[in-house]
């Protein structure tokens, strides 16, 4: 019982949690969301470029995309963030006069996300049946136009669930930006929890931060499942198919 009480006090000290809630809401949540959204958007654009390079007929482009992907997928997130943040931070500071490590955090997260998203896009695009490209070209579309308007859209649609999963990863990985030493207004969920925990010597603020993360990630996970299901079962016909009804496919009875 004694142990249980001690654990309860360590993790579920309601006073501590109530104290940290306002700054989690006002500062941590927006920063975490901005970090994830910004790096997700940049990562998606870069990832699409990487995917197109990866399937291009140009050997140099393919090789460059491969090398980039191998490097950024092969490094631990915290190492990439530190190297980019601390390495390029000073140059960025001189160029812009900004003292904030925040943009470097976004940059590092984006570069990492691009490597993963690039692979997701590439596998999606390559999974599209070759007949689609052939049909578009047979109509008179060039290779580029066929890829752009027929093959790539189908590939992207197919990997939407995987993309959402990548975004969930980004929400979690954005916590690692704390290693760059953020200004107090730039702190994301994890660092606010950590600072409060360090001040009070109690771990309850971590629990509060954890609840915020779960409130973001669990609904998204279920959204992924929903999208996945919809894509798998496809769009239902608007009216029952009378021709197929005999065989039972669209039969209403």
């Amino acid at each position, binding site marked *: 019982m004694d142990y249980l009480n001690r654990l309860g006090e360590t993790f579920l000290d309601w006073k501590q949690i109530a104290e940290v809630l306002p700054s989690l809401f006002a500062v941590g949540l927006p920063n975490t969301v901005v970090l994830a959204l910004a790096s997700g958007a940049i990562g998606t654009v870069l990832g699409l470029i990487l995917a197109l390079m990866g399937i291009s007929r140009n050997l140099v482009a393919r090789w460059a995309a491969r090398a980039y992907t191998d490097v950024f997928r092969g490094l631990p997130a915290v190492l990439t963030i530190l190297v980019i943040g601390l390495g390029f931070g000073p140059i960025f500071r001189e160029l812009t006069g900004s003292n904030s490590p925040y943009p470097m955090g976004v940059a590092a997260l984006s570069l990492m996300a691009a490597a993963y998203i690039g692979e997701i896009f590439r596998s999606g695009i390559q999974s599209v*049946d070759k*007949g*689609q490209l*052939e*049909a*578009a*070209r*047979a*109509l*008179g*579309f*060039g290779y580029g*136009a066929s890829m752009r*308007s*027929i093959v790539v*859209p*189908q590939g992207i*649609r197919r990997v939407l669930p995987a993309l959402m999963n990548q975004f969930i990863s980004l929400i979690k990985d954005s916590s690692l930006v704390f290693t760059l030493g953020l200004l107090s207004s730039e702190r994301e969920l994890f660092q606010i929890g950590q600072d409060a925990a360090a001040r009070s010597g109690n771990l309850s603020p971590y629990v509060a931060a954890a609840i915020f993360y779960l409130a973001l990630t669990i609904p998204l996970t279920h959204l992924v499942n929903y999208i996945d299901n919809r894509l798998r079962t*496809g*769009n239902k*016909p*608007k009216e029952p*198919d009378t*021709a*197929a009804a005999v065989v039972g496919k*669209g039969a209403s009875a």
Partner: protein
Amino acid sequence: MSKFDPGSLTAKGVHLSFGSNHVLRGIDLHVPQGTTASVIGPSGSGKSTLLRVMNRLIEPDAGDILLDGKSVLQDSPDELRRRIGMVFQQFNLFPHKTVVENVAFALRRLRKLPKDQARAKALEQLDMVGLKHKADVRPGNLSGGQQQRVAIARALAMEPEVMFFDEATSALDPELVKGVLALMTDLSKGGMTMVVVTHEMGFSRNVSDTVTFMDGGVVVETGPPDQLFTEPRTDRLKGFLSDVL
């Protein structure tokens, strides 16, 4: 009078190799304007490859392709393909677009028709293949036979001078084959120039004006259907016919 504006198609001495695999070994084929040529032969004889070389989905290593008597190898291959409609064994409809969008897509993007005009023309074309009522459904909700008829409408919408059919009924359930063959027969009777790669010997014999038998990347025999089916001259064609009939 023909409801189409077809052209003649000629292949002269066409060669193609994939690495050391010599797939087409000097193919000659002449399809006069408004006629239907069927190409038969065992799997791997190069029939489907020949179609793809004639619309330059694959560039030939040697030889010439003539449309309406003029060589097309100097022109842009995209321009050439706009003049030749192609129908595939696996239909290859665009699954993320509705039926009418499938047909209107090239009209809008290549012919630059305004949206409503492209849709009207696509609906007209769908009506011709009896599927106007399926215009706003996705291809995935159609039977194979219906999908193939949409694919034919998609190709016809571009008002091609020649139509290619690459084993257009081979992937269909037996009871769906008839509808597609009937549509192809209509096109043939309507005066379209057609090259039909097929395993449907009935179609080949009854509908086409000429039959070409290919084996091992060469044309073994060619002539009117009666001649080829009743008096095959070569042992290879005799053997093939006894296998498939």
